[in-house]
């Protein structure tokens, strides 16, 4: 009888182990709001493809931006799991596309730099998946692993202090954002001034060059004319 008991316990433990592993695997695999972002180097004359797995009736948002490279442009295609080309951007420097609802399978994102023979491009892209199915992701599991809320052992003062801290940090963030916005505006005006200055001085340059060329030719001809007049 003792052997029977231990055998039952062992099989129950095995079942528990399988259940736990499955749950952990599923919850780790399923993300409610998955956000993948990568910045990579795309060599000249080549194309790179990335694949994203989605479930049915999810929403997928793809955003990309070319950060560096001579013309700051790449070709972009988005192909659905059934092979249908959803998006085709030819030589654009940025783009944002939403696919809703998604099919079940792997979507293919391809960046194409084959039109450029010399310059490699640095491309940033971001894929955001909003899953209709699935639980709240990682945060739902915390009810199990965190300690149970027994009574209200922490005072409201603690919560208030934490919220105050968050509030102060956010205020600081907003102030820094305002400062950065002012700096960006100043830089923008400086660059626009630069543009005006480059244009102006280039025109002046061209004018001076042409004047000098015409003057030279005219004076040379005058030398020969003077000679003829003298003799």
């Amino acid at each position, binding site marked *: 009888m003792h052997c029977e008991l231990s055998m039952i316990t062992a099989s129950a*433990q095995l079942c528990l182990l399988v259940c736990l592993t499955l749950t952990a695997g599923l919850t780790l695999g399923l993300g409610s709001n*998955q956000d*993948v972002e990568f910045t990579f180097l795309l060599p000249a004359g080549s194309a790179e493809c990335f694949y994203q797995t989605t479930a049915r009736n999810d929403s997928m948002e793809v955003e990309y931006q070319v950060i560096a490279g001579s013309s700051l442009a790449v070709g972009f295609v988005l192909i659905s799991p059934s092979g249908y080309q959803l998006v085709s951007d030819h030589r654009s420097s940025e783009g944002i596309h939403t696919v809703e609802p998604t099919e079940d399978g792997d979507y293919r994102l391809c960046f194409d730099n084959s039109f450029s023979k010399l310059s490699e491009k*640095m491309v940033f892209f971001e894929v955001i998946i909003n899953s209709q199915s699935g639980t709240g992701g990682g945060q739902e599991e915390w009810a199990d692993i965190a300690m149970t809320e027994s009574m209200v052992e922490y005072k409201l003062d603690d919560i208030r202090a934490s919220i105050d801290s968050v509030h102060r940090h956010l205020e600081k963030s907003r102030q820094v954002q305002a400062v950065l916005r002012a700096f960006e505006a100043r830089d923008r005006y400086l660059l626009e001034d630069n543009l005006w200055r480059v244009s102006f001085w280039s025109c002046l340059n061209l004018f001076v060059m042409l004047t000098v060329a015409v003057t030279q030719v005219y004076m040379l001809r005058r030398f*020969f004319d003077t000679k003829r007049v003298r003799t």
Partner: protein
Amino acid sequence: MMLSVPAAGVLLLLAWIHPGDGLYFHIGETEKKCFIEEIPDETMVIGKYRTQLWDKQTSSFLPSTPGLGMHVEIKDPDTKIILSRQYGSDGRFTFTSHTPGEHQICLHSNSTKMALFAGGKLRVHLDIQVGEHTNNYPEIAAKDKLTELQLRVRQLLDQVEQIQKEQNYQRYREERFRMTSESTNQRVLWWSIAQTLILIVTGIWQMKHLKSFFEAKKLV
């Protein structure tokens, strides 16, 4: 209760290296794929990858053999190598930045057996987490014995701290950009003036030289 310890072990391992069914890409035998992460200093980055090999018999991707690994190389903004290690077919690498800037994470397979790749390519599932996403909240909850509300507030505090760090880094980047812009501005101005002056001087010199040349040759 004997099996609970290996169960916990399996769970931990799964959480540790499983990057989820996220983004994947294909990599050739000698191909090197590089990703760039621009991060502020003292920021932790955790990368997880999982590889699959094309199996001709079943015409699908199967988990690759243990012998097939990936070599991970990480360079800091000064192109100094801060991590250069070999990992197995499933791996997890982590590093903390000490200087702000663009860090480069490069992956290439270390396979020497050409036969393994004969079918085509290796499929790599990659997941890179930066900053407060690297925090293991279940572990923090267990260590500090936090309730769920406290854990959520802790997460909020970490997120806000990361936002502030990123903004400080952005301020530093903006200052560098401003210095570059102003120096370009100066350079454009002075080079244009110099170019114009050189052109005028060259023109006058040419005329004088030609005049004296013609006079010497008794043409004028």
